[in-house]
């Protein structure tokens, strides 16, 4: 028969969805991916001319060798951890909030207002007001795309992304204009905050880390055990079902994005008043995007987010140490991070799909399916 051309169209390798794997196997796959990532990274280090074991050892010791190093690592972890928790709230609802950057910045802007102009208030009142302002700033910045989505069905991915740049430009404008430090000559920047307006240190690090740990518990309990958390997961799964169950989908959407933005905004306040002690355009340090990876790698589980954030923090701090002690360029450290991420994320693909190679032709007689329903 003349119809075997249908068979020729089958590609050499096909992607097939897997039946669901048991949890233990998934954990094993992930571990395997991590080992492969370290091996591939090691190969790369070897190619550049260093001993991978020494480099890996330095990353670890660089991040944890002394109390000072640990404090620096923790400072990297704090914003990443809080922001990951923030976006997790939105992601649970399948709302692609990639605007954490903007929400962090707006949180920082709102908090900075009080730090700059009301620095003479009672310290704790000021801190509380700044935290609230940060949450309101970030929350409103998150609420905006949610409101448009709820009412006009706009695409939240584009909307939240674009708001990042808006927020960034607001800070640029502030430091060039209204909030410009009069004491700075020529170079436009915002003044350093008063000591009264900066976060206190606990064990050598600003107490943002305590807030982060408390937030883990709050987000975990909120998503897992509250009615609102339940609503978030139903809306995320299917808005139709949520409506059927009598939920007010719009309300859930708005409320959740307000919270998601508020947590990110709180992160902005902590960064500005705890870490930078001023407001700059670099207040986020890019955590708004890294947090997305952290949240997904952790399967949106707050406790896993803690672990993944710590690992990310160690990697980042360690990388900076190998830069300084081995003269390895920043790019090499980035490549290394990239390789590790590539394997770990690739592993998620293989958890859901597998590849099937084309079978040898068996006579090629198979026909096109009779298209009928």
């Amino acid at each position, binding site marked *: 028969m003349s119809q075997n051309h249908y068979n020729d169209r089958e590609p050499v390798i096909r992607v097939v969805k897997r039946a*669901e794997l048991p949890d233990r196997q998934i954990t094993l796959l992930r571990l395997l991916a991590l080992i492969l990532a370290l091996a591939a990274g090691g190969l790369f280090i070897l190619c550049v001319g260093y001993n991978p074991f020494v480099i890996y050892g330095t990353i670890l010791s660089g991040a944890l060798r002394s109390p000072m190093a640990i404090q620096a690592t923790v400072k990297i972890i704090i914003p990443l951890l809080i922001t990951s928790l923030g976006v997790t709230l939105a992601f649970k609802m399948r709302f692609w909030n990639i605007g954490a950057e903007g929400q962090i910045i707006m949180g920082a802007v709102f908090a900075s207002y009080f730090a700059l102009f009301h620095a003479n208030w009672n310290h704790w009142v000021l801190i509380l007001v700044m935290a609230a302002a940060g949450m309101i700033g970030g929350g409103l910045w998150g609420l905006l795309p949610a409101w448009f989505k709820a009412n006009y069905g706009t695409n939240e991915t584009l909307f939240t992304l674009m708001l990042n740049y808006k927020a960034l430009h607001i800070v640029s404008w502030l430091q060039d204009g209204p909030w410009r430090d009069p004491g700075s000559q020529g170079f436009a920047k915002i003044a350093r905050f008063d000591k009264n307006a900066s976060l206190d240190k606990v064990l050598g690090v600003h107490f943002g880390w305590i807030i982060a740990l408390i937030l883990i518990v709050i987000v975990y309990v909120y998503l897992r*055990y*509250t*009615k*609102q*958390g*339940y*609503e978030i*997961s*139903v809306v995320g*799964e*299917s808005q*139709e*079902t949520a*409506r*059927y*169950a*009598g*939920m*007010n989908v719009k309300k859930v959407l708005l409320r959740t994005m307000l919270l998601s933005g508020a947590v990110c905004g709180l992160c902005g306040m902590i960064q500005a008043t705890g870490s930078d002690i001023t407001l700059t355009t670099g207040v986020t340090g890019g955590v708004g995007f890294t947090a997305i990876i952290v949240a997904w790698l952790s399967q949106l589980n707050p406790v896993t987010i803690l672990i993944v954030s710590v690992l990310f923090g160690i990697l980042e701090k360690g990388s900076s140490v190998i830069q300084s002690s081995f003269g390895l360029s920043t790019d090499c450290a980035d490549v290394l991070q990239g390789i590790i991420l590539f394997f770990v994320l690739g592993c998620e693909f293989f958890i859901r799909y597998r590849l099937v190679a084309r079978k040898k032709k068996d006579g090629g007689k198979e*026909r*096109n*399916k*009779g*298209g*009928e*329903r």
Partner: protein
Amino acid sequence: MSVSEKQTVEILKVLYRGAQILILDEPTAVLTPQETEKLFAILRKMKEQGCAIIIITHKLHEVLEISDRVTILRKGKSIDTIETAQADEKLLTELMVGQAVSLEIERPLIEDRTPILKVVDLTVTRPDGSRASDDISFEIRRGEILGVAGVAGSGQKELCEAIAGLMKIDKGAILYEKENIIGKTPAEIIQLGISMSFVPEDRLGMGLVASMGMVENMLLKTYRNGRGPFVDRRPARELAEKLVTELDIVTPGVNTPVRLMSGGNVQKVLLGREIESKPNLLITAYPVRGLDIHSSYTIYDLLNEQKKRNVAVIFIGEDLDVLLELSDVIMVLSHGKITGFLDARKATKEQVGLYMTGAADKEVGA
């Protein structure tokens, strides 16, 4: 073009390409009995011309009518292949289920039937602008099963959603215990004791959350109960466990995601939950879709039990034989309009079929 015409074109297309084997999967789901007859005439002609035809169907009388040989599948295994001439419905059922079952659907008669829901001149428009319900009026009483017949897409889904408060209503009124429920939120309507279980083609659709387990799904409509911000999962777990034992639901555990369960079990979960919410009005659409005979009869029993408890049941079905045996009154929909009410105890399939195409004269009176 009507659905049956579209289907004919589809078949012609395949023949034109020179197909020798035709595989039809549930081809009659969207057809009236008369149209089915036409399809079968085409198939017989094709057979005479030397085509091989495989027809997959859950309607046994179709198997007996059209096929020469019949293969019975059960849980993915081929059980037996027999000559159709030597088979009858009883034998086929036994082979399908693996044990003898009675094919009688009982139909208890409830004497005291007070009206509970009255739909007056209901008009609903789909998002694409077409009329889903066009000036529909009917009434349903407690202790009664109102069967709704009609080819797929005649406005059944929208009727369900309108009563459940999920669709915007253009005109008309829905009176529940003499109170107009239009404008109430779905949550308020659930509180009134109106419960809807719609089983769409993909089965999970809107009634269940696929990635959640039974316990979480039990909470869907009741999670608001109880004070405080926290969800109380204990009653839901108890309910899930109760349903598993009472309805013989097969699942590895009450927390296994329902998407991993078989279709029959999923439907039992859905219907079980709706019934356990002790509704006054139960709307159920296609509850036996894709189910094996055994599970189907479990569902019919469940519905009858509800009827005996003085619940009003709206049963939207595909299989006319079942509709005729189970319902008290049959309401026929065609293109969003009610084309007739029939006494299910007296009506015949052909009559219902005529109303389904909208061909019969409009006749009022239940």
